[in-house]
Structures are given as C-alpha cells and as structure tokens.
C-alpha cells in the first residue's frame, strides 16, 4: 500500500481483519467460568473439586508459603538444568568430533532414554539423603538426554560441503567450530533445551514426591494428605506458571539468538 492510498477511506472491514482475537485466552476463561458454575451447581465438596475462587483464596491465605516453596523447587529446576547443560553440551561436542566416543557412548545414551528416570528417584534419595543434591541430580538426569541428543543431531547437521568449504578457507579447527558447526547446531540445541525445561519441572516434582521437607511437590503431597484440594490446586497452578515462564524464557533467548531461524520457521508456517 503506497502513501497515496492513505487518503482513500478504508473499507469498514479493514481494521477487523487485522485484529486477531485471543482465542486461547477466551477458551481458558470459558473453561474456568464453566468449572466455577458446575462446581457450585453440583455443590461438590471441596475435597473432591474446589471452585476456582476457593483455589485463589487458598493461594491468597498462604501466599508466602507458595512463594518460599516455589523458590526451593525453582532452585532445584534451574540448578539441575544448568548441570545438564554444563555436562551435556561438552559431551555432545566430543561425540560430534570423535567417531570413537560416538560409537562407544552415543548408542548407550540413546538407549538409556527408555529408563524411566522417575524410577531412579528413590535410589538417589537413599544415596544422597533428603537435601537438594538428589533433587538436582534427578532434574539433571531428566534434562540431560534431550540436551545431549539434540546437540549431537545439531552438530551432525554440518554437511561435508560445509566442512570442505571451511578447509578451503584454511579455517582452524577452532574457527570451524565457532563459525560453522556451533551456529549450525544452535537451533537443534534450543529445541533440546525447550524439551529439557519441561522435563526438569517434572523431575523436580517427582523427586520432591519421593522425599522432601520443602518445595511445591512437598506442598502438593501434604495438602493431599490433609484433603486440602484447594491448596493442592493452588500449588499445581503456581508450579505450572513457573514452568511456563521457564519455557518462555528459553524461547525468548532462542528468538534473540537466532532471529534468522525464527523467520525461517514462520515462513514455513
């Protein structure tokens, strides 16, 4: 549209076609209102199905409890996640560069993905006690696999031609890594980190279920045994919001780090 078009009155529908209603938000509101109405009409006891307003009240009554315990869980999530990155990405780099390590370790890593990590939680708690260490270990274990596997896949996306091109420029191995292989691997690495961010939340809660004296998982367990479903729901919702923010932060970092990649994907949509 050129500037001369601006003087022409726009058709009435123009503004409407540009406006995108927040469909998902509307669905959510309808769901919550429906929940409230059904819970009130059926007059279900709170220990079976609390109303959304009861959940909000439960949160408001003990907001510092959720904040403090949420903080504990968040520390577990972030520590475990960073441990996974710290070990996972260098390991993926070695696997990508060494055929021997690739053959010796990578199949085991892929194969051991089938082990349900939650099942190891009691073992780790027995070994490390009830402190932060076993929780961080479980979170790290959960996050580790998607990070390693996606990073290896990313590194392997460097085509032979790309590496030939690097050699023809006289690139040193370090230059080849920083300018060719790592940027090529980043989109896949971020995909792995997004997956890991979701799993790390699950890891922290499972670890807290098995044995803890604090954290949102602990609150959920205690509230459950007291038949305080309103408190349980409040903790779950608080946890979910934390998980969503974590996921969003990684997505945001991805869009900032790889603007070229984001635009390729939106073209494909």
């Amino acid at each position, binding site marked *: 549209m050129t500037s001369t078009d601006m003087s022409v009155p726009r058709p009435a529908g123009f503004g409407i076609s540009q406006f995108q209603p927040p469909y998902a938000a509307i669905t959510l509101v309808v769901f919550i209102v429906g929940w409230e109405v059904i819970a009130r009409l059926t007059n279900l006891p709170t220990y079976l199905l609390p109303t959304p307003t009861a959940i909000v009240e439960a949160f408001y009554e003990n907001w510092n409890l959720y904040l403090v315990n949420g903080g504990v869980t968040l520390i577990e999530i972030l520590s475990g996640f960073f441990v996974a990155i710290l070990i996972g990405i260098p390991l993926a780099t070695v696997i990508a560069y060494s055929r021997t390590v690739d053959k010796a370790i990578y199949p085991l890593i892929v194969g051991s993905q089938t082990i349900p990590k939650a099942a190891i939680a009691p073992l780790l708690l027995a070994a490390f006690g009830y402190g932060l260490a076993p929780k961080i270990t479980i979170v790290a274990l959960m996050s580790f696999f998607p990070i390693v596997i996606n990073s290896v896949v990313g590194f392997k996306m460097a085509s032979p031609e790309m590496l030939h091109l690097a050699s023809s420029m006289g690139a040193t191995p370090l230059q080849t890594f920083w300018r060719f292989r790592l940027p090529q691997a980043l989109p896949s690495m971020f995909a792995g980190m997004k997956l890991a961010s979701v799993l790390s939340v699950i890891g922290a809660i499972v670890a807290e279920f098995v044995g803890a004296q604090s954290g949102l998982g602990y609150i959920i367990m205690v509230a459950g045994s007291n038949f305080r479903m309103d408190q349980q729901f409040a903790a779950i919702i608080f946890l979910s919001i934390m998980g969503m923010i974590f996921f969003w932060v990684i997505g945001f970092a991805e869009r900032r780090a790889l603007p*070229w990649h984001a635009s*390729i994907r939106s073209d494909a949509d």
Partner: protein
Amino acid sequence: MLDIPSPSHFITINRVSKSFASRKGAVRALGDIDLNIRSGEFVSIVGPSGCGKSTLMMLVSGLLKASGGDIHVDGKRIDKPSSDIGIVFQRDVLLEWRTALENIMLQAEIRKMDLAAAEKRARHLLDMVGLTGFEDSYPHELSGGMRQRVSICRALLHKPPLLVMDEPFGALDALTRDQLQLDLARIWQENGMTVVFITHSISEAVFLSDRVVVMSPRPGRIEQVLEIDLPRPRRLSIRDNTRFSAYSQEITQIFKKLGVLREGDDA
C-alpha cells in the same frame, strides 16, 4: 596425453588415481589421470554421474588424498586441503545465520584479511552479479540462483588464482543457468583466474571453456580433451553457431561410443 609438464602449467596432474575401500575390497574410482592446465585457462570436466569428476575436483583441492600419482598447483604439491582456491559446490552452502554480505565476508574473517578492503570488494562482487540491494538479505530470502551467485562471490573474495566449481549450476532452472553462465564468463574474463569447472552438461562445458575434458565412467578416465576454439566474449547466440554444434556433437558421439548415451535406433 603427451603434455610435458612445464613452468607454464599452473596445474599438473600426473598419473593420479583414487581408490575407495568398500566391502568388496578397494574400488578404483579414478585413474590414471594425466592433465595439465595453463594459468588462466577455463577447463571443464564433463562426464556422466559416477565418472569420478567430483573426486578429481576434490583431489585438486586437496580435500581428498590421491591413491597414486601427484598433483601440483602453482608449483606446490597438493597433499593437504589447499587454501589458495575458491570453491563453489552444487549446493550453495550459504550459512543461514549470515546475510549475503556476511556470508561473503566469512572468507575475509577466517583468512584475517583487511576487513574494510574486503567489504569493499564484497560489495563490488555483489554488484557484478547483480545483487546490489540484497547485501543484508538472509539466504532464505533469496532465490536459488541468487544464493548461488552469493556463493560465487564468496569464492572470489580473496582473489584466488584457482576457482574450482563442482556442478555449480546443476540445481538451477534453465534460464537462471544461462544467466549465471554469462555472469561467470564475464567474471572470469575480468579476473583472469584459472577455472576448473565440473559439469554434466555438454553445452555448458562448450559454452564456457577453453578446453573440455571428456571423461568415461567407472573407473573415471580421460577419454578425450577438446580445444574449444570459439571467439570471446561469447554470447548466448553462439550456441546456434555451426562450430558450437560441431563441438557438442563430437562430445555426444564420444558418450554414445562409451555407451553413456544410447539412442533406440543405434545400429
């Protein structure tokens, strides 16, 4: 192949062969190859798929080691990846996270060239291939032909004495291909570098080259070398010239003789 290596030869390929290991033992892909290329010459290597022409290009670039024989470029024996060259592949191999200009400048960054001078040359090269205004476009915003032009600019930034091209226009549509052939011929005439051009298109080889090396398949050998004595600069209309047709016919006949091309009514 009675060429005697002499100082005037920029590339000497002497009894070069290449075998690859396979489950059935060593498989000979190439050889023996003897070929000499003069400085500033435009030589095309044409042959069917599997004739080892890409292997030959990898050997000349030092990206592969020969199983036998030796290759010298500009008096230096090639035994490791050569950095005194520009390479263009069939796939443009542009880095998706860099703009057109940044992709070309990669060459300068890795070679630690003077960046200001290099950027000036990069912009000049983009201008030469008609991409002024696309400096800041990302590869996914460019068409296949434009992408390949950027990769040619990248290969030329450091003024390499040797440009090696492996079926660079093989993935492009016919019109884009014609345009890029014209552009390449012009760039070559202005820069005077030696070009080794791998293709399976007979008319592309004749149109561009001073000499066409015709290869036979499995194991790849040089079947014949044709001098293309056509005036330059060449225009697209030269393809209707009788001498151009005669060269094309001659190469086609070689491929028919080799069984690479078969016409149903062959006696």
